[in-house]
């Protein structure tokens, strides 16, 4: 039996670095599969209520800030680019570039959360938050062409806050993960022989980006046609 010499990054219960990386990657994809079902429940609730209360969903969607929503989508896409380039930098052993790209990713992530905070603040001021102080009279006044039931309007905004809130929670966790990755990248832990944490963190970040790619049209773009 030959004894293979390898770096400390290879755990002894794996034969090769490749096998170790495949196992980690498969585990991450399985986790993402559970995440799809986690968000899937909310998308399912959204679908059922949207089919039943389309008018209220359309009016609620119109009241969202399309400009900020589009900017946030672009911010998130930029962060996905820096993550993809970061994985590449790690694979090629470019430590400084990796650190810079991770910092950029964190900035984009925090910018997204900041803009989301501004949007939520607007909704609080407009009394569009479900609960005792909910008030849809501005929507009823603005869109006299369509019949709006305030209690059904609350369902739209409940789903809006639940879905963007759950997404924002994932972003906050992502910022935590990337701060951790930044620290160890700075220490020089990752390189061509071992970059699995960067790769898996990247998979998580891209997944959260994909959730937003669907949330954006489903929440903001339900009915943006000019009202005739």
């Amino acid at each position, binding site marked *: 039996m030959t004894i293979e010499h390898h770096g400390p990054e290879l755990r002894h219960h794996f034969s090769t670095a*490749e096998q170790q*990386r*495949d196992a980690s*990657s*498969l585990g991450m*994809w*399985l986790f*993402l*599969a559970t995440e*799809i*079902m986690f968000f*899937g*429940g909310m*998308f*399912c609730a959204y*679908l*059922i209520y949207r*089919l*039943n209360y389309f008018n209220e969903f359309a009016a609620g969607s119109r009241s969202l800030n*399309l400009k900020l929503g*589009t900017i946030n*989508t*672009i911010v998130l*896409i*930029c962060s*996905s*680019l820096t*993550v*993809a*380039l970061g*994985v*590449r930098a790690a*694979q*090629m052993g470019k430590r400084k570039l990796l650190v810079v790209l991770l910092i950029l990713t964190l900035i984009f992530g925090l910018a997204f959360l900041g803009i989301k905070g501004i949007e939520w603040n607007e909704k609080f001021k407009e009394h569009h938050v479900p609960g005792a102080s909910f008030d849809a009279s501005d929507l009823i006044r603005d869109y006299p062409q369509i019949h709006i039931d305030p209690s059904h309007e609350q369902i739209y905004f409940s789903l809006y806050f639940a879905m963007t809130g759950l997404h924002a929670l994932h972003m906050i966790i992502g910022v935590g993960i990337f701060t951790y990755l930044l620290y160890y990248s700075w220490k020089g832990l990752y390189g061509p022989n071992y970059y699995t944490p960067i*790769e898996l963190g*990247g*998979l998580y970040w*891209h*997944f959260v*980006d*994909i959730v937003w*790619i*669907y949330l*954006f*049209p*489903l929440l903001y*773009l*339900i*009915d*943006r*046609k*000019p009202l005739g």
Partner: protein
Amino acid sequence: MSEHVLSSKLSYGIWIALMVLTVVTAGVATIDLGPFNTIVALLIATCKALLVVLFFMHVKYTSEKLTKMVIISSIAWLLILLFLSLADYTTRSLHAS
């Protein structure tokens, strides 16, 4: 699995495509296409998601078939959830009358 290194040129290309699709989807939403507004929005979103999964998440280059199986089955589960739920909720009114 992902020994493959994504070229920076391709990364920027995907990024530009994603940006363009974002602006297109926001623009198309303001044009009245009837029921096709939703279909177009979802098609664009799916194109964007595919670009991210295939290139940024390296799925196009993976030789590991298990990864692809996990992805395809998780989408299948999601579709089961959505379609069977709708099969219930959209047909309830049939019995009410």
